[in-house]
């Protein structure tokens, strides 16, 4: 049995996202996993995972208590004075940074895994020291949008990427984007696809297209999700007299979407729902006819993988890593971005497909999800990345070491 690693997972919060939680759960079976965050507690902590507070973002009193506790643990008067000075100044960021430094010293991790590029500023001192290897995930907006529209952000990442020991990319497309920021012959970048506990997701049997046609989208109402184009498509679809209901789970309360629904006269056929628990989302997926993903850019959307695992046919824009998941008309259907006419045409085509063809696509989609997106594969892929990064780091520190192992 291999020696367990001490891994720090950092995205700034204890709660993190569902997919980071799945990674944490998987890693915690074999390794010592620490989640650091700017919270004080978590309602449903993951078993075997150690949560370390760096001081609350919301509550100044709790931040002070956490900071003082951290200082006391150091057993140094100087440390205590430093904290007191920062408390008097109300210097929240520096208090949290100090707490992070002490936490890293205490844990002495084998690896630090940053989940988003926006967290790099917290670890600049670690990157400068080059003692603990840092892995960065390239997942979405912060990698495939912001650097390419914000020169300062691009320059910042270009400055720090060479100091990052290894990269995790959620898709090949994402890795290519990362290379545009910085590339090198020695760059370690591993594509590890998102993982699901597929066995726990039951496949819907006996699929039929509902009447009215039930269209479903799932995700926060961010412009990159392209819901404005989906609503334009709904307007066109309404003009064809095809009866449909379109639900956007997570879209409730969005001003722009509400305005467009009203503007296009879609109040009776489009519904914006609040965010829902995963089990209810799966239930809704089983009641729908088609998952519509009109995004302008994506890493590799978890919601597509989940819909494919459930057996809900998917119609998605061909952006980011989607084509690594779906071959057009094989595991789903692809359409160009920013094209409401293409969305409508594809929906109409879908309604005319023979049952056997839809069934074949559904089965192929489930198979693809099983083969490419199991939780075991995700955890194993990440472990391989960590170990490779550590071996390379070790070989750099002791050049005589045998590096042929990798």
């Amino acid at each position, binding site marked *: 049995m291999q020696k367990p690693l001490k891994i720090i997972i950092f995205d700034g919060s204890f709660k993190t996202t569902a997919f980071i939680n799945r990674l944490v759960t998987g890693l915690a079976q074999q390794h010592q996993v620490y989640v650091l965050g700017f919270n004080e507690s978590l309602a449903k902590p993951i078993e075997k995972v150690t949560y370390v507070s760096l001081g609350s973002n919301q509550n100044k009193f709790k931040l002070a208590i956490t900071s003082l506790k951290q200082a006391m643990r150091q057993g140094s008067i100087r440390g205590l004075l430093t904290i007191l000075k920062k408390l008097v100044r109300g210097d929240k960021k520096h208090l949290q940074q100090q707490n992070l430094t002490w936490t890293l010293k205490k844990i002495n991790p084998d690896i630090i895994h940053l989940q988003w590029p926006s967290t790099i500023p917290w670890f600049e001192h670690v990157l400068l020291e080059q003692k603990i290897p840092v892995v960065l995930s390239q997942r979405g907006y912060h990698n495939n949008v912001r650097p390419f529209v914000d020169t300062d952000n691009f320059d910042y990442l270009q400055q720090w990427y060479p100091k990052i020991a290894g990269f995790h990319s959620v898709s090949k497309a994402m890795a290519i984007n990362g290379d545009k920021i910085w590339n090198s012959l020695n760059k370690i970048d591993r594509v590890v696809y998102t993982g699901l506990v597929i066995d726990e997701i039951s496949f819907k049997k006996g699929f039929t297209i509902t009447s009215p046609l039930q269209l479903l989208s799932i995700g926060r109402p961010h*412009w*990159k999700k392209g819901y404005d184009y989906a609503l*334009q498509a709904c307007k066109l679809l309404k003009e064809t007299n095809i009866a449909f209901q379109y639900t956007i789970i997570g879209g409730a309360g969005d*001003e722009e979407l509400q*305005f467009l629904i009203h503007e296009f006269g879609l109040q009776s056929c489009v519904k914006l729902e609040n965010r829902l628990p995963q089990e209810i989302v799966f239930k809704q997926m089983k009641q729908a006819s088609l998952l519509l993903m009109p995004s302008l850019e994506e890493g590799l959307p978890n919601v597509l993988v989940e819909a494919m695992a459930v057996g809900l046919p998917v119609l998605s824009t061909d952006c980011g890593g989607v084509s690594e998941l779906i071959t057009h008309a094989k595991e789903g259907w692809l359409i160009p971005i920013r094209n409401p006419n293409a969305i409508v045409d594809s929906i109409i085509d879908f309604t005319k497909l023979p049952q056997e063809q839809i069934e074949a696509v559904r089965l192929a989609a489930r198979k693809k999800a099983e083969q490419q997106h199991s939780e075991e594969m995700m955890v194993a892929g990440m472990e391989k990345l960590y170990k490779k990064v550590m071996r390379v780091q070790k070989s750099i520190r002791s050049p005589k070491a045998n590096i042929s192992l990798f």
Partner: protein
Amino acid sequence: MKIGLVIPNSPGYSETFFISKIKGLQERGFDVRLYCQYKKGDFNLCPIVCSPKVISNPFLQGWYFLKAFLLLLPYLPTIVRYSNLERKAGTGLIQLLKKTYLNAHLLKAKLDWVHYGFATQAIGSENVAKAIGAKMAVSFRGFDIAIYPLKHPGCYNLLWEQVDKVHTISDGLLDKAYKMRLPQSVPVEKIMPAIDVNFFSCPSKSMALEHNQALKPTEPVRFLTVGRLHWKKGYVLMLEALAILKKKGIPFTYTIVGSGSKKERERIAFAALQLGIKEDVIFAGTLNREQVKKEYAKATIYLQYSISEGFCNAILEAQSMKNLCIVSNAEGLAENVLHGETGWVVPKLHPKLLAEQIEQVIKLSEEEKIQLTEYAADRVKNELSIEKQQAEFAAFYS
């Protein structure tokens, strides 16, 4: 006559609408004072009364609360009247206390008119004017009528019952208000926004001619939009239209003057990137009045393809600066620009139609362009000047 103008904060000197309104009223003998959440900058055009503070510290908030109620004691009859009106409207005791605190600055006022600068400002203060024995006016400005009620249905029901007079900047907004059950019996005055036509003016026809030189096929067309970066301004739709032109080989530059949230800026910049026109789009950011004037002077076609727009002062400035203006038909824009006479109005949310309209405008003869821009500038000068607006506001309260 004493007018209390309720707006979120004191206007900056570039905010023509309120500044010219205040100056105009003062020149005609009105006593104007502002009721704001906070005072911004060194505004000293008229007295400002700030609303009671709302803070997160419960102890300090408690103290402010107590202080506000003590200072309201000399106004007991007004408070009793206000409480009766609120209780009649079904307001509970806790809510009544909150409302009394938040309106304390207005409840102490002695005014003839309480004028809410935006309909949203009146929410929660509907009974204040009656309680202090004043008349209540409200302005319809855009977002407050076209967007806010979609998220808060029925938010103006009480306002419609209490308002004495409505000011709208466009018929488009008024129509929307009627659809939200504003009673037809409420008196309404349409007073369109105005600009400083002396400042925003082209010195001569030759300058207009010079502008239009840029519409020769070999020269890039210089498009311009002035406005904050917000989804309702339709920037992505404009970029989609421009991308169509680019595919047809029409060279251009597109300057966007204005700022907004990082998220909105990234949305527009990413659209330009994906549409292949990143190099043709210039984000000029926030500019001062002089700099904006220079941008108008450089531009050939002014675009305002908004998804929602109350009226839009920038288009008035562009017309006054003899730009060829192409706009959408959102709310008040078709009243701002007369289709085929002072510019062109294109159905909103149809970037292909916008691209077609732009192409047609580019193909117009020089004479046609000059004739149209001259007429547009004259119309702004004669019908949408600050002097005319000031006179209309003075008449509004009479």
